[in-house]
């Protein structure tokens, strides 16, 4: 990731959330989607993205599909049933974390 260590702990949740919304995605597509959604603020490097994807796959949260596209093989990731449940849990955890941080950093301000 380009700009902040703050994002590092949330990378897996970001990936799960994107896959939950998009259905299935390939690695490059995830980097571009994150870049577009954050107006270039957050850039996921290859060195951070692929180990995270492989770990989530090993944990049984992601399933893999391969297809031949433009004369080469493309690897798509999608959520498993367990992955869908875990996404809900991790998003709730992240929201709770953001809320706690807001209270610490700016107690008078709230997103809700």
């Amino acid at each position, binding site marked *: 990731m380009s700009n902040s260590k703050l994002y590092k702990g949330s990378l897996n949740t970001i990936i799960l959330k994107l896959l939950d919304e998009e259905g299935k995605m390939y690695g*490059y597509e995830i980097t571009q989607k994150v870049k577009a959604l954050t107006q270039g603020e957050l850039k996921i490097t290859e060195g951070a993205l692929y*180990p995270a994807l492989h770990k989530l796959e090993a944990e049984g949260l992601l399933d893999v599909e*391969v297809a031949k596209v*433009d004369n080469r*093989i493309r*690897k798509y990731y999608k959520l498993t049933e367990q992955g869908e449940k875990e996404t809900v849990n991790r998003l709730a955890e992240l929201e709770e974390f953001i809320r706690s941080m807001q209270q610490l950093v700016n107690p008078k301000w709230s997103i809700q």
Partner: protein
Amino acid sequence: MHLNQYQLDLIESYLNKMGLTQIDLRHEVIDHMSLNIEKQLGNGLQFQEAFEIEMRKWAPELRSSFSLWLGIANVGPKIMIDKCARITKELYLKSGIAALLTTLIFYFLRPFWNNDTGIFIIKDGLGVLLLAGVLFLVYGFYQNYRLGLKSSYSFLFKLSSSGYFLFTVIMNPFAMATLYGTEHEAFNFTGLFFSLFALSFGYFTYELFQKHKLQAKRYANG
């Protein structure tokens, strides 16, 4: 603008040079590099310029690396070694837990054993199971050879199988008669733990072969 076959071959040659031959990682990296290069071609860059940018970007992930978990003699691209090291840690942890729990079961059932018969069954039973594990892994080796493909799992399978063969020679009760103590001593549960660890390790190593087979099937169909 899509890359032509010659340009894709150049990327493949580069990955061969860097040692990234494992199908579960290689195709993903080729696709990612190709998409980035195509984007740069769209921005007006020449293929060679875009390819060099991409090679620089991937250099940290593809540099030759090793992990103490795999042994310093086993080097490979960092992206592959990191994946294998993580799987190996899990392999040791799962084997350790399985061996510990089974040893505890034997330990608590100790008062119910008939001494000689019980020890005979455990020793010979485990000895046979450990040797059967060798046969399963040899079968895996043969199947790997027939598939003729490489993945992170086949790399780890070969490595872990070698460890299992060595372990079996040392920890097999047929080869080491005093592993569980002698008839004049109390039963040695440490020896039992290590034999069970080797057996669990062999089982999870065989699972690596199954995962490799899955990768081979997946990419053959893709």
